[in-house]
């Protein structure tokens, strides 16, 4: 088994545990490179078809290429696609800095969707190497009744035994690719020939490393026009992956506050 085989086997194990131990789960499909890998892994885990809904919590501000991608592959991959809207910006904590406040709409949209369907587990494609508070996450991460993350009291988790009994009315976040890196995602995308949104590839000296809302996501300087070139670029770069995501950089704890409130 090579490194990618090991990552894949571990993710499949986690997805199967989530499906076996929870009653009603959904996979959060943000349309980005990570959640596309996650859908691919779910198809591997369940032999072709994802046996639970794929939910896109839509801020309405994504790039047109992302919507085209969603509509095309939602059909081709036979996903049980649920597109859920987010509330207007006025409904969001006004003390957050502007970009974080904008991103927090997604948290509110997520809460509405949870209330609507009664999911007890949401599968999310976050990775430890993306950001420092995500590095502290559990694979099965309990959320409070308000969807909040209690970072001071995370349960123990070891030997691939997961805490899978959320209290009545609360839910779990399940993170099957927590242990992957950005380079792993690209190497696997290439090996498995998983489709990607072309915004990740350089055009006129710029490309997106991470995709979010149009108004709070910026491209980085790059000449990488295919996955091999992206991998070569990642070998050299010292720029963090989420450098183009405005919400991460507004204040020291902006991202933590978002996550504690239930952001991914």
């Amino acid at each position, binding site marked *: 088994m090579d490194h990618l085989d090991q990552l894949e*086997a571990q993710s499949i194990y986690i997805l*199967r545990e989530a499906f076996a131990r929870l009653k009603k789960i959904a996979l959060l499909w943000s349309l980005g490179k990570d959640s596309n890998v996650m859908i691919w892994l779910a198809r591997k885990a369940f032999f072709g078809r994802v046996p639970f809904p794929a939910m896109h919590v839509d801020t309405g501000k994504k790039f047109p290429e992302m919507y085209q991608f969603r509509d095309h592959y939602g059909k081709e991959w036979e996903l049980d696609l649920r597109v859920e809207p987010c509330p207007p910006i006025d409904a969001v904590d006004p003390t957050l800095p502007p970009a974080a406040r904008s991103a927090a709409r997604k948290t509110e949209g997520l809460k509405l969707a949870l209330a609507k369907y009664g999911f007890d587990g949401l599968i999310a494609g976050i990775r430890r190497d993306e950001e420092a508070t995500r590095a502290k996450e559990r694979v099965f991460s309990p959320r409070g009744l308000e969807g909040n993350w209690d970072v001071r009291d995370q349960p123990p988790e070891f030997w691939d035994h997961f805490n899978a009994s959320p209290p009545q009315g609360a839910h779990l976040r399940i993170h099957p690719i927590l242990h992957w890196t950005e380079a792993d995602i690209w190497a696997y995308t290439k090996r498995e020939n998983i489709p990607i949104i072309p915004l990740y590839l350089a055009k006129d000296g710029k490309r997106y490393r991470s995709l979010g809302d149009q108004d709070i996501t910026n491209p980085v300087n790059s000449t990488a026009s295919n996955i091999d070139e992206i991998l070569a670029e990642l070998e050299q770069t010292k720029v963090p992956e989420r450098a183009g995501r405005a919400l991460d950089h507004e204040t020291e704890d902006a991202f*933590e506050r978002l996550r504690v409130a239930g952001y991914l």
Partner: protein
Amino acid sequence: MNMIAPSASPAAPDDTHAMPNGTTRPQVRIVIVGHVDHGKSTLVGRLLHETGSLPDGKLEMLKAVSARRGMPFEWSFLLDALQTERDQGITIDTTQIRFRTNSRDIVLIDAPGHAEFLRNMITGASQADGAVLIIDALEGVRDQTRRHGYLLHLLGVKQVAIVVNKMDRVDFSADRFKAISDEISAHLNGLGVTPTAIIPISARDGDGVAAHTDRIGWYKGPTVVEALDRLEPARPLEALALRLPVQAIYKFDDRRIVAGRIESGSLVAGDEIVIMPAGKIAKIKTVESWPVTPVAGRQGAGRSVGITLDRELFLERGDIVAHAGSAPRETRRLRARIFWLHDKPLARGDQLLVRCGPKESRATVVAIEKAVDPGELSSVENKAIGRNHVGEIDISLSTSIATDPYTDNPRTGRLVIEVSGRIAGGGLVLSVDAGQRAVPVDIVPVESALRPDERSARYRHNGAVVWLTGLPASGKSTLAKALERRLFTNGGSPILLDGDTVRAGLNSDLGFSAADRSENIRRLAEVATHLARNGHIAIVAAVSPAREDRAAARRIADIAFREIHVATPAGVCEERDPKGHYKKARAGALASFTGIGNDYEAPQAAELVIDTSKRTVAEAADEIEQMLKTTGVLFDDVGDLAANI
């Protein structure tokens, strides 16, 4: 049985992380542990800096964050990402960060040293291939140093490098270094762990981290980076006997796929296997996959796979697929060495939930053989295992499980303990009290001479398990007998399995504890399912109060299961009381009686609900008959029969 030998050989090419630039480096996961404030997070920060692994702007950000708090430059802010961690200057939860040395891709796991957060240390350390145990040169070995050392051993982390930090605080004294080296070596040797290196450093200033400096000129051993380079990645356990714990059985299409991860050994289509703990045997028909299926070739440890079998067997989550001749042991009793994380000490008689891989079982602590605080020097024996302490316990399980002692198989020979749905402890299986079961390879199931359609053509129905559940005196037996008569009159083959009747014979060894009730239901379900597979309609009338037990029965009978909730109001049942049980129970003369407490868990999705206080027996039998027709058990007319042949 094979023993595990830690591998000292250089990594084989297939274990390596193929890098895009064409070079290969093994990936090693290393946890940094030790007493609070001995400098774990600082060492991590220094390592990242020395190996050029910090992203642009990070150093400046740390300077700003430190200045904002009016503190000197603080490396630990790099990993202490949470606001409360920075404000209080302690690590609360474990985190991971990556960097590279010349020959390794390293995932560094930072773990909190504060006793309050031991559960987080365990979460971090359990993922590691090797560990760095850090000790403050001034303070020396402390309780958390010893506790972490002990837990590394329990978690199976065998490669441990010792770092004696803050040498600047003891004027880089070689004597002080030697005293600490001797003390910690003695402690670890007592646990069967030999340190791979003992290194004097100053994490804050950088001495001994990536380079030797004049201040520690008397030290000739490896630097921290060199010591990390010598740690080896964990290897999949391919050389051991096959263990494939079943995570789930999938029937998404016409395939019946048994899914799980191979924890040790390997398998290939055509292998003769045995399914434990039941001891059923079969052959692997195919290894399924996606997008290409089936796959040829041997699948080894670490792979998540799906297999199909050459015959229809009842399997469930938690069973273990093994090779005939090297199966794990089946047991309801085992001894384990555990660490305990729950606030309430673990005591004799405590009821628990134990998980061995995907298998779960309720359990009772039969004895506490040892209970100590691994942080203390003198091990004071206690009667109960306190929070953050360790011990050895005997457990009795309510269901049979298949497991191995951890010395035979470190993957299947470990367990976790849950209390109220949260992981409260974990440990290693020391020994297994094997049951008196026949050797599995001697059991060869014999198939019936008749085909199912031959029987259904005669009886005009398919096999089924009709399960009547409800309070005592709700009318289950009366209804069961009426249904039996009616099916028989119509030419069918009904067979009544009344709970009380079966208890008088087959189940006469069982009482009314939760564990015995589960076993009672399991046996009823097994017998009923056997009848259903042979074309009969087994009518089971049993209180079966536990939802979990009925769910187990449904899993056993699978698609043949039809649940009927006889939902006669409790008041009416008590008034009827034909056997006088309610009266006795009210008088306190009948322990464990279901009915007058709240211990009956009503079904949530029964195929049919009948209130016998509102209809006659004949009307109720009509309703059951109708349900059996609409759910495909009874054939409505000749057309249906034709469709079933």
